[in-house]
Every structure is written in structure tokens, then in C-alpha cells.
């Protein structure tokens, strides 16, 4: 079996960052008298730097959630204000750190939170320099000047970053439109090609000899492959169109997996691979559009079969507390660490040359991710070079079950209280 190398869930990273920053803040608060000021600022700088480093090194597709963002910003603000206070208030040039913080807010959020945040910064700065401007009112002018400077810097940054983001969005939109049009336009010639070939094979234009039949069979097969690639492109261009679930219902995941694996048996046999399944005996009910979940399974199994030269591909299903874990493991070449974080990205191909031989758009995994995330599940990959790759995803179990278990819990608590 391959070594387990699960990526750290993003929630834990977030929690770790908040706890880390808070601990750092409290420690600094208690020991500031005992250590030289320089160390103090070093400590603050280091805390913020480490936090950002952690964020960027572990950054994945998910964006920061708003509450977390604000908690983080206010901890930064507190740290900076403290530094300014101990560095001598107005005399210190550290107020420029507020500028950096404002720029950070400006590039990550919209203009309105920025305006609120500017007010908060104004209050904070006024607070830490309180003794100075109280004693000599002329200092107020200096404080205002500095605040106006910060204000101008951050608003300008915000506007420019909006413009850049706007351009990117526009570009993205054009790309989607293009892909969608291409996908539709490619269907017209494909319709003619596949239509005529089917007619010829059906003997509607006279009898064919064996060789002609074999050749036309190949044309038909390849044409159908092309059709599914064209569908993939449309899928990627307009994921929301396909995520639109036709019918949401409760269905048995065990049975669905059984069916999909069965469909792939001939493909596995052709490639001399062993396709096995490890499924529990009981019914496992999840909620969603079975066609979408089937698409995920097809993409994952197809992917594993494509890249595995010898050995096996196994599909397993394991019920957990509130979710069901599905794994698709193979004994293929594995994916190197540098490629791992990107395998779910659109059009990403681990090895261009290899992939061209296998055929594929680099979209299957991206589509799988969209579908699983839209259902509130998680999807990830573990791999070791030379040993194999495991794609796993979870799906929440249906809510009715959850409700029931909550009721049961409450009953247990009540009973406990009575005793």
C-alpha cells in the first residue's frame, strides 16, 4: 500500500493561523517589558511574515472566508498599533505598516470594507498617539497628513487592483464564450461525419465489403471519441450549466458505483488490468443528481485506467460519521510532488507528451472537482512516484440521517441529566 500523504485541510490551516497569531500577540503583550524593543518589532514582523508565508504556501482554490479575513486583519492591526506605541508613537516611522495593511485589504476586498477599515486605522492611530496630540494640538495636523497619505495610497491601490481584476474577469469570459462556441460549432461537422458513416454502416447506401466496414467502424469510433472531447470542452467552459442538476434525489451510492465499475470492466480487460471494487453490503444513501456523481466516478476511473500500465485499479467505498468516503486507487506511475497541487486545474496535464499518447483534454479532474464541491464534498489526491495514485472524495450523507442522530444525542444527554 502506498504511504498516506493527506493534504492538510484548509480549515485546520485557518484555525492554526488564528491561534498562532493570538498566542504570539498574548506572549508579546506579557513580555514586552523584559525584552528590547527591537526584538519586539522583530517578533511582530516575524509573526505576520510567517502567517502570510503559511497562507501562500498552503493556498489552494478555496478563498479566505470573510470572518476569518477580518479576525486576521484586526490581529495585524493590533500588532502594528502595539509596535507603534512602543516605538514612541508619533516619532516612529512604523505608521507606514498601516499602509501595507491597508494595501493588503485593498487588493483582497472591495472598496466599502476598505473605507470602514480606514476609519478603524484612524481610530487606532489616534489611540496610540493619544498622549502626544493631547499635549500639543499641532501634532493633530501631522497625524491627519499621515492618515490622508495612507488613505490615498490604499484607495489608489484598490482602484487599480479592481481594474486589473476586471480585465481578468473579462478575459475569462471571452475564453468561456469562445470555448462554448467552439464546442457547438464542432458538433455540426461531427453530425455530418457520424451521420453519413452510420448510414454507410447500416447499408443505406449499398452493401459494403468487410474491409470497408472495418474502416468505417474506426471512423465511427474515433468520431464518437471526438464528440465526448467536445462535450468535455463545453463542460469546462460552462461548468455551471452542467452543474445545474436535472433532478436532485436520494440514491444509493453503493449501487451506482457497482454499475459504473461494471461498465468499465471491458476497458480494463482490454488493457490487461484488474478492476476491482471493495464495497460494503449495505445501502448508502446520498443526495444529489446521480448523473453528476456518475460523471465524477467515470472521470476518476477512466483517468486511473488510462495511466496505469499494469496492476490494478480499485474502487472502494467507506461510510464515515457524516460522510461517505470513495477512493479510486491505481498502481500506475504516480504523480510527482511538484505536479500534485495542480492536477485538479483545467487543462493541466502532468506530462504533456504522455498525455498526448493517452488522449484527454485535461478536464476530467477539474469537472470532477466542480461537481463534488458543489455538493459540499471534498476531493483530493495522494500519490507516490512509482507506486500509484489514489483519488478520494467525500459526499455528505443525507440530512435525514444527521437529524436522527442529533435527536438520539439529545436523548442521551437528557438521560444522562436525569441520572
Amino acid at each position: 500500500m502506498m504511504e498516506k500523504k493527506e493534504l492538510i485541510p484548509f480549515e485546520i490551516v485557518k484555525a492554526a493561523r488564528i491561534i498562532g497569531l493570538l498566542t504570539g500577540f498574548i506572549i508579546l503583550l506579557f513580555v514586552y517589558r523584559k525584552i528590547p524593543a527591537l526584538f519586539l518589532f522583530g517578533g511582530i514582523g516575524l509573526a505576520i511574515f510567517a502567517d502570510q508565508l503559511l497562507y501562500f504556501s498552503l493556498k489552494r482554490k478555496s478563498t479566505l472566508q470573510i470572518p476569518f479575513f477580518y479576525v486576521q486583519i484586526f490581529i495585524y492591526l493590533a500588532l502594528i498599533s502595539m509596535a507603534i506605541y512602543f516605538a514612541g508613537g508619533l516619532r516612529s516611522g512604523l505608521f507606514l505598516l498601516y499602509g501595507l495593511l491597508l494595501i493588503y485589504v485593498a487588493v483582497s476586498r472591495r472598496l466599502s470594507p476598505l473605507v470602514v477599515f480606514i476609519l478603524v486605522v484612524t481610530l487606532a492611530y489616534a489611540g496610540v498617539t493619544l498622549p502626544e496630540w493631547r499635549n500639543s494640538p499641532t501634532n493633530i495636523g501631522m497625524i491627519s497628513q499621515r492618515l490622508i497619505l495612507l488613505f490615498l495610497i490604499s484607495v489608489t491601490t484598490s482602484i487599480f487592483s479592481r481594474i486589473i481584476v476586471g480585465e481578468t474577469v473579462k478575459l475569462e469570459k471571452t475564453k468561456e464564450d469562445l470555448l462554448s462556441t467552439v464546442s457547438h460549432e464542432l458538433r455540426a461537422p461531427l453530425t455530418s461525419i457520424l451521420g453519413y458513416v452510420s448510414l454507410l454502416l447500416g447499408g443505406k447506401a449499398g452493401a459494403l465489403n468487410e474491409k470497408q466496414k472495418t474502416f468505417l467502424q474506426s471512423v465511427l469510433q474515433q468520431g464518437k471519441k471526438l464528440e465526448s472531447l467536445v462535450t468535455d470542452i463545453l463542460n469546462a467552459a460552462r461548468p455551471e450549466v452542467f452543474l445545474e442538476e436535472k433532478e436532485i434525489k436520494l440514491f444509493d451510492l453503493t449501487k451506482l458505483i457497482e454499475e459504473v465499475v461494471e461498465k468499465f470492466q471491458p476497458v480494463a480487460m482490454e488493457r490487461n488490468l484488474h478492476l476491482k471494487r471493495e464495497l460494503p453490503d449495505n445501502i448508502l444513501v446520498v443526495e444529489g443528481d446521480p448523473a453528476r456523481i456518475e460523471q465524477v466516478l467515470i472521470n476518476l476511473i477512466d483517468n486511473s485506467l488510462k495511466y496505469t500500465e499494469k496492476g490494478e485499479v480499485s474502487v472502494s467505498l467507506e461510510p464515515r460519521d457524516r460522510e461517505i468516503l470513495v477512493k479510486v486507487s491505481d498502481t500506475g506511475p504516480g504523480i510527482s510532488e511538484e505536479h500534485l497541487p495542480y492536477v485538479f486545474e483545467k487543462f493541466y496535464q502532468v506530462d504533456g507528451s504522455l498525455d498526448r499518447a493517452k488522449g484527454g483534454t485535461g478536464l476530467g479532474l477539474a469537472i470532477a472537482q466542480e461537481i463534488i464541491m458543489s455538493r459540499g464534498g471534498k476531493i483530493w489526491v495522494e500519490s507516490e512516484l512509482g507506486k500509484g495514485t489514489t483519488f478520494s472524495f467525500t459526499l455528505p450523507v443525507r440530512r435525514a440521517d444527521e437529524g436522527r442522530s442529533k435527536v438520539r444525542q439529545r436523548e442521551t444527554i437528557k438521560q444522562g441529566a436525569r441520572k
Partner: protein
Amino acid sequence: MTKVLVIDDDSDVQEIIKTALEAEDFEVTGRFNAIEGIRRALKDPPDIILLDVMMAGTDGFEACRAFKAKEITKNIPIVMISAKIEPRSQKLAKELGASSYITKPFDPLTLGETLLRVIENNK
């Protein structure tokens, strides 16, 4: 003989449908745009209409609406046939009263069977 009216601006599609259906004893009439198609259907109502969605001028959805609004063509089953494979288009077609939706590329060899089934269900 079952009379089929095919409205599609692609001459290849017309040819393919014609070849496939005529071999199965359908009487096929083709029109290259929606207006011509509607005119033809009013003059000589077919048993079933095969209607493309993306056409220049009046598109298939509008044509479908027009067929369903006219007394003569109201009860003729309509089968949409389109390169638009999105669930949204299929839903819209259903809402407009189309009996079935075939996505392109389609298999001409099973088309006749599908049409007969739609006519049967429509009775």
C-alpha cells in the same frame, strides 16, 4: 405512410435524415428555415416535425412556439434536434411543448424508431 417535416438549415443533416427515414417508409419533406417550414406545415400538416434549434432568422424555439399556437399544427408532435446539449435548452424545449429532444450528433439508424414512438405516445 408517416409524413415527416424536417426543418434544419444544414443540408447534410437533411440528406442524412432523408436517407435514413425513406429507407424505413417515411415520407420526408425538408425545409431550410423556420418560416418556410411553418408555411409548409400549414399547407400540408405532417404527422411529426423534426426541428433544429439554431437557425438563422427565426430559431427552433420560436418556431416551436408558433406551431403550438396555431390550430392546424397544435397537435403535431415536435422533436427538437440540436447541437445545444445543455440541460437548460432541453428544459426550455419541453416547456414550449416539444415532445422529444435529440442532441447532435445523432444516430440516424434509430431515428425512425424514435419518431414512431413519439407519435405513438402522442396519440
